[in-house]
């Protein structure tokens, strides 16, 4: 029988056959190993290997969202986002040019016979190439175009050039170390190319347009747009709005942003922003929005290579404040006109509330700052400038002051409620009142003679209050102050959305509000309580400390005939006007009428007569208290009140930190601010429903 061709090909020797079968076996084992190995990787280890692949070859780049806008109660934008155009260099696209430069530098070093330091030359090549491109960018965007007639070429950087014209070697090294995959920023903001000069809007637009229209399109230099925070009215309501700062923190729940195994991936993030003060801080969770993401493959040297998938960022929600832009503007403008004899701005605060809802219409504090100058970065120079003026403190809610004669309203109510005095009782008020061994003076050396409640409020008689206060005793006086909430932090917020903070605005001074009593004095080592302390307290002097916002709330409560007002900086058209802890004042109708009549007389014939508004009758109580400024005695000027007198709609409080040499007085110094706020309010209130009268508060 003839053998098959395969069998013919086999050797005839048994040893040779065995050797051949051994080789077959080895091959079979080898192939089997490969096949099993492949099956193992393809079928069983797929998940692990894919995760490994993701980790090694892909990365997620997170894009911070633009923040939500902030509006006033009428829908005017108080905080918006401005488009920022920046110029960036794609380092991956520049690699060939950098490499050529690097080789040229090595050649030059060798020609010179100098030892070649490869790392340094690599850095130098990178820096020089980027600098060359930056020179070209400046050549196009520079306002002064030297080439216009002479045809001059881009000039290289000079040592005396602004820092923005030079590529910073340290920044570049940091970028390569931490964010190699992202483009390198050559010019941060085309509208503000030099840090020292802020361009007018049209100049900024021209710079942007020059680059876009003229710079060659194809190349490693690209134009990118993002968003920066903009405060169109400059420093208006700066303490309320706050400002923002850079953050490199990854967003919360970053792994839940997309339906991807994000936790295995390397994450990079463009620098984002977070609130650093004011509403920007307390409502950061609402305003900040949701980050977008891009999934990139990366090269072995760490640059981004190809975009695989992406999801856009989502802008944060808007916040509607209760502020009225025009009233706020009027308050700030009036405060900015109060200066001492040297022309220096006097610090102060002004608040206006809606009597019924407690919504804050104006909350101003001077000195102030421009949040636009903090939107990108806070320079030490600007920080020190604002700090030197005391501009960081929001005096309306953080400043603690003795309320002075504005407190006499509380003393009077306590006296009426406890039957110490009635509305028509007449007290004989001389030039002073003796308590123990000390004479407590009247502010008018002649005294006021026969004084009833109305007259006391109109002329701000001290002696009337000494008498009533001492007869009341401090416990009852302090209890009355507490009834009106002078020891209770305000601006608490009912929503838990706000970063877990219980306050609508940062409120660090809340714990130091003081309604003094014997225990307080003892606790702080000031000795036992005396009748002299009570006399002092009855006119709002001594240890008592409160804020302008608290006194505005007292005025609003008086206007409604209640004890408490819950203020809010958030506008809610459906607010029901209920106030936490509010109860009726607890005096008779006649007493309340006399009290209100006294406050009206204060404006028509009393201490606030210089700031009377003929077409708007209103009620007010002025105050001038003493405090120590740099070791010297100085005056605090106060005025609180409500308007219109017969049907109160708004309440207000103004405080000015004065000095003795300027003769600072409540009616004379703080009064004009209140008058300007009320005039603006009245002008708006008279406008037809839904219409807004022309505003003189313009964008800057």
């Amino acid at each position: 029988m003839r053998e098959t061709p395969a069998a013919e090909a086999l050797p005839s020797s048994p040893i040779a056959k065995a050797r051949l079968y051994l080789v077959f076996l080895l091959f079979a084992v080898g192939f089997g190993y490969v096949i099993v190995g492949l099956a193992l990787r393809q079928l069983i280890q797929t998940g692990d290997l894919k995760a490994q692949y993701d980790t090694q070859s892909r990365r997620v780049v997170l894009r911070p969202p633009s923040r939500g806008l902030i509006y006033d109660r009428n829908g005017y934008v108080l905080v918006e986002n401005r488009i920022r155009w920046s110029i960036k260099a794609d380092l991956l696209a520049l690699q060939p040019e950098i490499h050529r430069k690097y080789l040229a530098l090595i050649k030059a070093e060798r020609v010179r016979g100098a030892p070649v330091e490869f790392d340094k030359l690599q850095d130098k090549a990178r820096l020089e190439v980027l600098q060359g491109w930056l020179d070209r960018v400046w050549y196009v965007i520079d306002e002064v175009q030297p080439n216009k007639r002479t045809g001059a070429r881009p000039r290289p950087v000079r040592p005396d050039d602004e820092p923005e014209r030079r590529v910073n070697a340290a920044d570049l090294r940091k970028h390569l170390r931490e964010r190699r995959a992202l483009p390198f920023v050559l010019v941060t903001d085309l509208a503000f190319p030099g840090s020292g000069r802020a361009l007018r809007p049209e100049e900024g637009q021209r710079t942007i347009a020059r680059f876009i229209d003229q710079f060659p399109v194809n190349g490693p230099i690209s134009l990118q747009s993002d968003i920066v925070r903009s405060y169109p009215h400059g420093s208006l309501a700066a303490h309320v709005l706050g400002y923002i700062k850079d953050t490199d923190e990854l967003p919360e729940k970053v792994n839940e942003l997309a339906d991807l195994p994000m936790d295995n991936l390397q994450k990079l993030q463009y620098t984002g922003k977070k609130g650093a003060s004011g509403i920007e801080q307390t409502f950061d969770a609402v305003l900040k929005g949701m980050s977008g993401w891009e999934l990139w493959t990366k090269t072995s040297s760490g640059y981004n290579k190809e975009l695989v998938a992406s999801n856009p960022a989502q802008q944060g929600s808007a916040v509607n404040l209760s502020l009225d832009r025009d009233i706020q503007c009027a308050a700030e403008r009036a405060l900015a006109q109060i200066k001492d004899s040297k022309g220096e701005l006097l610090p102060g605060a002004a608040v206006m509330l809606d009597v019924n809802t407690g919504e804050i219409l104006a909350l101003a504090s001077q000195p102030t700052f421009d949040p636009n100058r903090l939107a990108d970065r806070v320079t030490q120079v600007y920080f020190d400038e604002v700090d030197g003026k005391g501009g960081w403190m929001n005096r309306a809610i953080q400043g603690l002051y003795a309320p002075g004669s504005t407190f006499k309203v509380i003393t009077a109510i306590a006296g009426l409620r406890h039957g110490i005095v009635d509305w028509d009782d007449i007290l004989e008020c001389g030039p002073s009142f003796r308590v123990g061994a000390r004479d407590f003076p009247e502010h008018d050396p002649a005294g006021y003679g026969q004084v009833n409640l109305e007259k006391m409020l109109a002329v701000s008689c001290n002696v009337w209050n000494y008498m009533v206060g001492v007869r009341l005793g401090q416990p009852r006086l302090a209890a009355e102050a507490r009834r009106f909430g002078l020891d209770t932090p305000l601006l608490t917020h009912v929503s838990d959305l706000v970063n877990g903070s219980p306050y609508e605005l940062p409120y660090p001074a809340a714990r130091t509000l003081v309604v003094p009593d014997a225990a307080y004095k003892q606790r702080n080592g000031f000795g036992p309580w005396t009748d002299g302390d009570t006399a002092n307290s009855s006119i709002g002097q001594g240890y008592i400390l409160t804020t302008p916002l608290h006194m505005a709330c007292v005025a609003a409560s008086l206007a409604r005939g209640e004890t408490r007002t819950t203020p809010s900086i958030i506008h809610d058209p459906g607010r029901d006007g209920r106030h936490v802890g509010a109860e009726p004042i607890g005096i008779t109708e006649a007493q309340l009428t006399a009290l209100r009549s006294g406050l009206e007389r204060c404006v028509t014939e009393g201490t606030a007569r210089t700031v009377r508004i003929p077409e708007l009758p209103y009620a007010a109580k002025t105050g001038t208290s003493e405090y120590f400024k740099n070791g010297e005695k100085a005056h605090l000027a106060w005025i609180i009140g409500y308007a219109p007198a017969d049907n109160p709609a708004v309440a207000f409080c103004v405080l000015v930190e004065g000095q003795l040499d300027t003769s600072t007085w409540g009616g004379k110094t703080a009064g004009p601010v209140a008058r300007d706020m009320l005039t603006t309010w009245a002008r708006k209130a008279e406008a037809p429903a839904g219409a807004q009268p022309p505003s003189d508060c313009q964008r800057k």
Partner: protein
Amino acid sequence: MDKHRQGATASYVVLALCAVVWVVLPAAVHRFAQEAFAEFQAPALHLAGKARDLARFWELKSRDKEEILAASRDLARANAALELQLRRYEDIRKENVRLREMLRYNPPPEYLTVVARVAVRDSSTWWQRIVIRKGSDDGVRAGCPVIFSDRVIGKVAVAHHTTSEVDLITSPNFRCTGFLESDEQNRIVLITGAPGRGLASGRSRVTAIPQDYVYPVGNAPKVTTTGLGGVYPAGLILGHLEGGQRTTQDGNFRESSLTPTRDLFSLQEVTVLVPKYPTPGEILLEDQAQKRLDELR
């Protein structure tokens, strides 16, 4: 038969060798060859354009006399109307100059106009580039804007001696700034050419549209040049926004397509606006060209 086969094989080998040699040659030689080819084909392009003009001329000449008479009557009327308008514009121009002098306002760039016939559309890039029959000998420079009437057509990419290549507004190499119709704040938007989709007509892309921009009711909003960049005069029409808008990748803006106002396929004649003094952008382009020449040397 074998000889034929050998000949064919040899041709393939030579072709392959040429291809390899072309690939291996330095970039400078490539560029030199491209420049030389552009100059070489310029007369042919001129000839082709003129032949087309001649064909058009004979086509018009064959028209009926009455038809031509009617057309010239219409033209005379239009001319009279335009004469009137011209006088009005002259008054406005004088007033404008006077006001500028009063305000010491920096005058906008001055332009010389060069009217050029379209020679050919570059077949390698379809609608994205055209060749016109005017070049650097006529004063045309790379970077100069090209318009038709009050509409932007594109920008000169390369100026040869007697011809110039123009990147159309739909070319990915085109970029400029624009203002959106009825945007009271006059915020800048960015217009770029979009990569083509097959043989469909060209499109440009408008990005950086503010999120709060509200489209005017009715017609698609116009996008016009800003006149701020020193290249394009203000108020020239770039096109109309299309309705569909998407949110951009960063979530900060919207983007949309732009339909050019002119059918770029039917262009016969365009005007090149040559700025009196070269802009920095032009000088950068010149420098790049000079660099290429240096490399050649």
